[in-house]
């Protein structure tokens, strides 16, 4: 498809959850599958906005006259989420993260931030509105096809999770409601699907570079705005897989072209993307009349001095470059640069230990052990890794003993206790033991001899050393 000739214009909106407590309550941002402690049933009604107009998207939802059922879990929900109590002041940690993101995106930051109520009455917000505030504007990022301008950076509450629905009612779970969400909107000047993909990936990378965002399915969501000549803007919601963007965009262009060919109006609507890249009508595009001030909270005065003193994190891309220079290959550099363990990795590399070994232990060995022992809700503490590698650097243990040490640590033993059993054998003693083994198994081939020796030494000697001795002895 020639995107240039059809007047293709696209912009993206990226929604990223932050890894902090909720934005206006102090509840944990933790999703759950448990049986709810309580169910609450509510209705919502359309209301007039600041300009005296009822938002068209709001009217659309009210006309459905649905019941909304909310699943309440005491572990992650307070009266603020059930719309039974006024909000607490904004989460300072979340505010600092968005300031950091604004700086990374070269934005201007709003001097006085007013928290707004955005009318949302599909039931996904118990109050009938989403609390949201504009924090940054006029930023940019560099891409291979030129600068992409960032229109706005917004901090808002995530909505409740839709669990099920029938003809009369929609059920939501309140665990997700109120988790801080950063929304980044680009100016609609993206040239083609590849450009959309590149932009989305770059913004995602910048967000992850803060180290303060949530990871995993559903923690980042993309919406794409698309228009072509002769039609208006259509918003495609819920693009989960950025790799499917090409197909989704082309399908939508064809749909818009078909509609226009039949002289139908295109634009002003929000559509839901399905797994097969087609989309269905969701609701009309909301208007600005859906916004009014959150009267329960004061205006936030931005402290520019504090913002300028925030130490910006190293971008994941820059980090990866650094790791390539350390001698890691492309794949390992990328993996460890993206990992939340990059901090620990940096600390351990200072000891001079081979970075490939560190990466393997941090990213693969740990996973293998956890898989083998069926551990899901626990991970090795950073301090454990650092202490273990320090012992290795001091030759207090050998690298071949690391997996066993790790496995025993998961069972509750302390590093101190474990390492007693893995003291490396002195060179002269090693020579003696290995000679004995070679002598009494003189018929075995070299490989089998090494295996036997390693088993007998139980990780207390370096494999390379053992091999070297055996090779020399059997020459």
């Amino acid at each position, binding site marked *: 498809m020639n995107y240039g000739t059809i007047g293709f214009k696209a912009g993206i909106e990226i929604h990223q959850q932050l890894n902090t407590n909720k934005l206006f309550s102090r509840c944990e941002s933790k999703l759950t599958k448990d049986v709810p402690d309580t*169910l609450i049933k509510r209705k919502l009604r359309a209301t007039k906005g600041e300009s005296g107009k009822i938002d068209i998207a709001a009217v659309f939802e009210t006309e459905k006259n649905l019941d909304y059922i909310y699943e309440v879990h005491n572990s992650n929900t307070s009266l603020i989420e059930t719309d039974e109590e006024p909000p607490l002041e904004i989460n300072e940690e979340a505010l600092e993260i968005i300031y950091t993101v604004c700086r990374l995106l070269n934005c*201007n930051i709003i001097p006085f931030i007013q928290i707004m109520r955005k009318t949302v*009455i599909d039931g996904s917000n118990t109050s009938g509105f989403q609390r949201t505030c504009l924090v940054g504007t006029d930023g940019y990022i560099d891409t291979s096809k030129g600068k992409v301008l960032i229109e706005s950076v917004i901090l808002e509450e995530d909505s409740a999770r839709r669990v099920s629905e029938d003809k009369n009612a929609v059920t939501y779970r309140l665990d997700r409601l109120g988790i801080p969400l950063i929304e980044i909107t680009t100016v609609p000047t993206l040239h083609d699907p590849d450009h959309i993909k590149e932009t989305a990936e770059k913004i995602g990378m910048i967000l992850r570079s803060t180290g303060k965002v949530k990871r995993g399915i559903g923690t980042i969501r993309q919406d794409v705005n698309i228009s072509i000549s002769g039609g208006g803007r259509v918003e495609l919601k819920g693009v989960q897989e950025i790799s499917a963007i090409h197909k989704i965009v082309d399908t939508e262009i064809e749909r818009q072209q078909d509609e226009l060919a039949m002289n139908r109006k295109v634009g002003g609507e929000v559509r839901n993307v399905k797994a097969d890249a087609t989309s269905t009508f969701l609701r009309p595009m909301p208007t600005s009349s859906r916004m009014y001030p959150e009267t329960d909270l004061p205006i936030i005065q931005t402290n520019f001095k504090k913002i300028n003193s925030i130490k910006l994190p190293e971008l994941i891309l820059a980090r990866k470059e650094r790791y390539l220079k350390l001698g890691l290959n492309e794949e390992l550099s990328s993996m460890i640069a993206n990992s939340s363990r990059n901090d620990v990795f940096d600390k351990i590399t200072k000891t001079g230990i081979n970075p490939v070994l560190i990466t393997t232990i941090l990213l693969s060995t740990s996973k293998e052990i956890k898989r083998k022992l069926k551990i899901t809700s626990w991970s090795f503490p950073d301090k454990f890794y650092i202490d273990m590698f320090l012992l290795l650097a001091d030759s207090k243990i050998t690298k071949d003993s690391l997996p066993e040490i790790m496995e025993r640590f998961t069972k509750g033993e302390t590093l101190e206790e474990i390492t007693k059993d893995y003291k490396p054998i002195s060179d002269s003693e090693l020579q003696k033991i290995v000679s004995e083994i070679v002598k009494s198994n003189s018929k075995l081939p070299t490989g089998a001899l090494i295996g036997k020796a390693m088993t007998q030494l139980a990780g207390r000697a370096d494999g390379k050393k053992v091999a070297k001795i055996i090779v020399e002895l059997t020459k």
Partner: protein
Amino acid sequence: MSTVGNKVKIKYFGSEYEGIILESSDKNMHLLKLINGYNVGLPKKGSKVEVLGKSRIGLKSDFAPLSKNKLLPNVALISTGGTIVSRVDYKTGAVHPMTKPRELLGKIPELKKIANISVSAPMSIFSEEMNQEHWSKIAGFVARELNKDDVRGVVVTHGTDTLHYTAAALSFALEGLSKPVAIVGGQRSSDRGSFDGGMNLICGVHYANSDIAEVATVLHGTSSDDYCIANRGTKVKKLHTSKRDAFRPINTVPLAKIYLNGKLEKHSKCKLRHSGKIKVKSKFENKVALIKYYPGMSPDILKCYEDYKGIIIEGTGLGHVATTTWLEPITNLIKKGIFVGMTSQANYGRVDPYVYSTGRSLSNHGVVYLEDMLSETAYVKLSWVFGQTNNLEKVRHLMVSNLRGEYSEKSHPNAFLY
């Protein structure tokens, strides 16, 4: 230049902000509503403002004229203020009472199918501002409406903070009540989709059309929008600052549950609708007081009340204060002809002067024990009783008589934490 309502473009530190100027609470800041709907504040210092034109902003009070449907009952709505008739002032961001309570009806179109509703608004105040004069005025309005033959019942909208005091006041002031009076409020403001006052008002109108002839509060029964509970005006208290179901019956169960569709389930014995004019006895005395006793409290406070006609002491447990320091000053007040009544800060249960010597001694010296009457109700009742008579014997007699269901004949086993 920075006139409220102007469409402007403001340049500030390399960014341009286009929108409408709103009223700002901070002199040094332009508050701007951007085209995308967000409000932002910009320091006046360093801002370059370019006026683009004028804009019309503000709520238009557009509501359909009320037309009567002869098949529907007539219900009178009396608006006094509070969250239920509040709206956001978009210029200041503050919450204000609606100037025209009929706006409220515009927000709840279902009401048109339930009743013909006439609206009057004797006042528009937050309920913490209510006093005896307001109670009198509201009682007058309610009685006038109820005494109209074609009016089935009355709904009073009220701020929730002191809604239960007014409910008690109306209970006493309306003698020979022959029709229902519902008092409704809202815990969430009407600007939001989750406005709870909508259902409260609908259920209140259903109550006003019912066969119950009592003053009752009608608000959410649970956190859900499934039914409201009607609580007798003398036996109800706001037990939560912000929850929808904050109004709970005390020492009793609700009169009724009322569902959105009009279904009404009675849960206690209540007086029934009958013919007969209502007499307004709306005089309240304000030289009465309600005092909460706490450990370590000095009896010096009682000196402030020496020119009062009566006080209610909200004592501990079964109705106690430290007699070592309080007995003498209380006795002195009583000797001066001041009525002293005793209720309990435990909310639930009955006061009893006989269980402990403290109670016996207070009672022997003339303190009147008010059984399971709520402190707030006792205060309102005392104010009303002194509005009717200054004869202390009569006051005492009236205070211990069960006039409006303020006493429970028996303590209901299901009443605690209903």
